[in-house]
């Protein structure tokens, strides 16, 4: 009667659950490395708020050195994820990956004052972005990228404040223009009631903040209303308008 339940089967399940726990632990430690490098880059890029604008390229160059470490960490992670099981473990790295996307997006903005392209993002991490739901192994999901873009809007509104403090009055104007463009992009998305939606709802406060800065500057005639400051109309700035 007692052979109705094959206890060997439970042993097999126990073994496979232990395997899974090991995989998760390995992924967690790889993600921890990724997170550490993320924080290094964040520390470097944080200095942009207290630097003059001609120091920015040097900061970006310094950040870019760390991105090769990020590539290595992601490469380690890639090897740990079994084929077709990306979403089984996705929750373990999604947060740090969003942060890494944000950092790449911010670096790119500081260098060229435009939104990073998917191709450039892939270049930063040496991983593809999943554009057609055809993941087999590790990829970056569009959601993760968009989370990074939302973080960018938040960071740029802060940068707008600090640019004024350090005497750069034209930057808030450019940031304001860029954020509005991003916002109209986000408005195209039909977001469900998920975390991306909640964070998207916050973008308008970032825009409001930048608009208030521009108002303050305009009222005091520190910038000329509706006119791009002449010296700032660089070729990279024109890209955004294209």
């Amino acid at each position, binding site marked *: 009667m007692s052979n*109705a339940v094959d206890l060997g089967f439970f042993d097999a*399940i126990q073994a496979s659950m232990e395997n899974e726990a090991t995989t998760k632990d390995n992924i967690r430690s790889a993600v921890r490395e990724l997170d550490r490098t993320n924080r290094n880059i964040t520390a470097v890029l944080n200095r942009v708020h207290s630097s003059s604008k001609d120091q920015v390229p040097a900061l970006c160059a310094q950040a870019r050195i760390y991105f090769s470490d990020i590539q290595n960490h992601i490469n380690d992670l890639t090897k740990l994820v079994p084929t077709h099981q990306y979403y089984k473990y996705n929750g373990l790295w999604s947060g740090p990956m969003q942060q890494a996307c944000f950092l790449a997006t911010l670096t790119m903005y500081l260098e060229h004052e435009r939104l990073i392209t998917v191709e450039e993002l892939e270049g930063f991490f040496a991983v593809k972005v999943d*554009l*057609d*739901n055809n993941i087999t192994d590790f990829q970056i999901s*569009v959601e993760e990228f968009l989370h990074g873009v939302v973080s960018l809007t938040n960071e740029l509104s802060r940068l707008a404040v600090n640019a004024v403090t350090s005497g750069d009055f034209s930057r808030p104007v450019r940031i304001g223009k860029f954020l509005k463009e991003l916002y109209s*992009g986000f408005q195209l998305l039909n977001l469900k009631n998920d975390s991306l939606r909640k964070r998207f709802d916050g973008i308008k406060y970032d825009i409001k903040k930048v608009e208030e800065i521009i108002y303050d500057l305009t009222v005091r005639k520190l910038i000329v209303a509706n006119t791009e400051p002449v010296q700032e109309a660089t070729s990279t700035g024109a890209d955004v308008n*294209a």
Partner: protein
Amino acid sequence: MEDVHMETPPASLAELAESPLTAQQPITEQRHASKEDMIRSNLGKSIVQDFGYFRDILEEHHDRRERIIKVSRDINNFSKKMIFALHRAEPRDYLPQFSAVSEALIEFKEKHTTVLKLFHRVAIDLQASNYYRYQRSVSGAMQEYIEAMTLEYYLVHGKLMPKSALEAELVFTTTSEQMANPDLIIAIGQSFGSEANVADGSTSATPASPIIIETDQTSSAPVTAASSPTVQLSLEVTDEDYLLGIADLTGELMRLAINTLGQSLMPTLQEEDNSILSPEHRVQHILQFLRDIKSGFDGLSLTKMSPISKKMGVLRQSLQKIELACYNVKVRGAEYPPEVLRQMLMSGQDLGGGAGGDSGSAGNEDEE
């Protein structure tokens, strides 16, 4: 269009090469590649255009999840009905010579066929990485199905159904027409209205198909229909779903045991043919089966967070309830007339047993 890709995961390219799909393979790949290439070549021109593509990508994902949730709900409903049918059947119905004429078991089989078709339909959306992407949306339905199947297996074979036997049923041969139009497999969303239609003749096109899933493939369906290649789709049963399904099974076994115990007190049913075990023996068998399952679960090292450990409480309750019921029959058997005792048993089950069983299934419905 994503489905087309899903039928050709790189892992199985080798085996597919031998299949009749070979002729069609390059076409699919090419069409698929061109879609991603098309997106790629258009990206980076303007923010608004890029976000338009992102919207499409996200929308595809949300639509797919909606479809999966809808089918899962149907699977859940039909699985519950399968379980009800099993409880309605008499013990002798499970003997091979009677199973074909038992009304309850015929109903079970009809529902089973329907559920398999529903799984077939949902399998299209759950290939390759998508299985784990949407796993939380189907796992509730999967557990309910496992509960029904393991209960039937126990009633027929007196054993625990192995996971491999469950998975063996979840392999589907799909034609490209079915890939393009899942309504050909089974139309969904009818489990409440005209379920009879779905149950017996779902192969025939349902007149008012409530949900038509539009895919880009539809346009290219005629091309592929000519060769009509088939693809094997399979669904994996995860260890966790299997264990949770078994945990739910224990609640059903408890119900079964109490009912059987009640039967043992009915004098009219005592003189049955001796090809089946007496009710007392059947209760003892269920009890032993449950104890075996419990010792299997007890051997697993689970974290407190695991949903399985939450269900362990239900398992323990079910077991104790049967043990207590057996005790009561033994102790008070001589004091009350059998009919009164039986009433006591049944009402006891309604109070405690019902709650235990419901909390198990309520957990499933909470998913997504």
